[in-house]
C-alpha cells in the first residue's frame, strides 16, 4: 500500500518530532508528508493518496477545524482518516469536531508512545 500519513502542524519542530515517532512505529519516511496549515494540507491531500492525517487545530492561514470541514466536503471518513492533535479541552468544541468525522483525539502534551499506538490502531497491522 502506497498511502501516506500527513502531519499538519504549524510548528516545524513538532512536525519533526512526530515524523520521528511515526518512523519508530514502522512507517517509512517516504510515506510521511507535512503541511504547516490547513490550506497547505488540502493541497497535499489533493495531490497524494493519504490514509491518515494528524491534524493540529490552532494554526495560521487555515485552522484545523476549517480544514476538516473542507476535507469532509470531498472525502469520507473511511477514505481519509483524521486524528486531531490538540491542546483544546473545551467539551463543546471537541464534540463539534467529533461530528465532523474524526478517528480520534490526541491531547497535547502527549507521549510519543501514545502517538505510535494511535497511528498503529488507525492504520492497522499492515501499516
Amino acid at each position, binding site marked *: 500500500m502506497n498511502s501516506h500519513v500527513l502531519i499538519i502542524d*504549524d*510548528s*516545524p*519542530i*513538532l512536525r*519533526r*518530532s512526530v515524523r*520521528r515517532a511515526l518512523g519508530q512505529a514502522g512507517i517509512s519516511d517516504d510515506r510521511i508528508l507535512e503541511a504547516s496549515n490547513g490550506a497547505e494540507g488540502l493541497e497535499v491531500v489533493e495531490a497524494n493518496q493519504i490514509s491518515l492525517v494528524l491534524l493540529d487545530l*490552532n*494554526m*495560521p492561514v487555515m485552522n484545523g477545524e476549517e480544514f476538516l470541514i473542507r476535507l469532509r466536503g470531498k472525502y469520507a471518513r473511511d477514505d481519509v482518516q483524521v486524528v486531531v492533535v*490538540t*491542546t*483544546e*479541552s*473545551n*467539551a*463543546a*468544541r471537541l464534540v463539534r469536531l467529533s461530528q465532523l468525522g474524526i478517528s480520534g483525539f490526541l491531547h*497535547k*502534551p*502527549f*507521549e510519543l508512545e501514545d502517538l505510535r499506538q494511535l497511528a498503529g490502531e488507525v492504520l492497522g497491522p499492515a501499516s
Partner: protein
Amino acid sequence: MLNDETILSLAADALMQIAFLITEPVDGDSPQESSHFARIHFKGPDQQGELHLLASSGFANEVAANLLAVEPHEVQAEEAGQALGELANILGGEVVAALGGVEQPFELGLPEILSSPPPPSSGATMVRLESEEGQLEIRLCTR
C-alpha cells in the same frame, strides 16, 4: 487566577511528557539570563491574559534536543526558539483548561517567538524552574 504551585505542576508535567525533562522549582528571586522568549494570548468569557516564557539558552536547547532526539550541542538557535514556542502553545492549552475547565470556551492565540523579553505585567504570577542545563521563567498575566 492560578497559583504558583499549579503553574509549576502544569509546566513540569508538560515538560516531562513532551521532552522527558525533569525539572525542579527554583527561588523566584534568583536572577537568570534568558535568551529565548515566547508568548501566547488567551481569551475566555470572563478573563483574558498572556503567558510569557523566558528560557536560558541551555534550557531551550535541552527541550529542543529532547524533542528531536539529538544532542543539545547539535541544536540550532532557531530550533531552540521553536521548541519554546511549542512549549508556550502546550502550556497555554493547559492553563486555559485549568482556568476554564471543559465548559468555558477559551480562545488560545498562536504562540509568538520573540527576540526580546516581553514587558512584564503588573500583577503577573511568576514562577521559575530549572533542569540540568538551565532555567525557565513562566509569567502568567490575567485580567
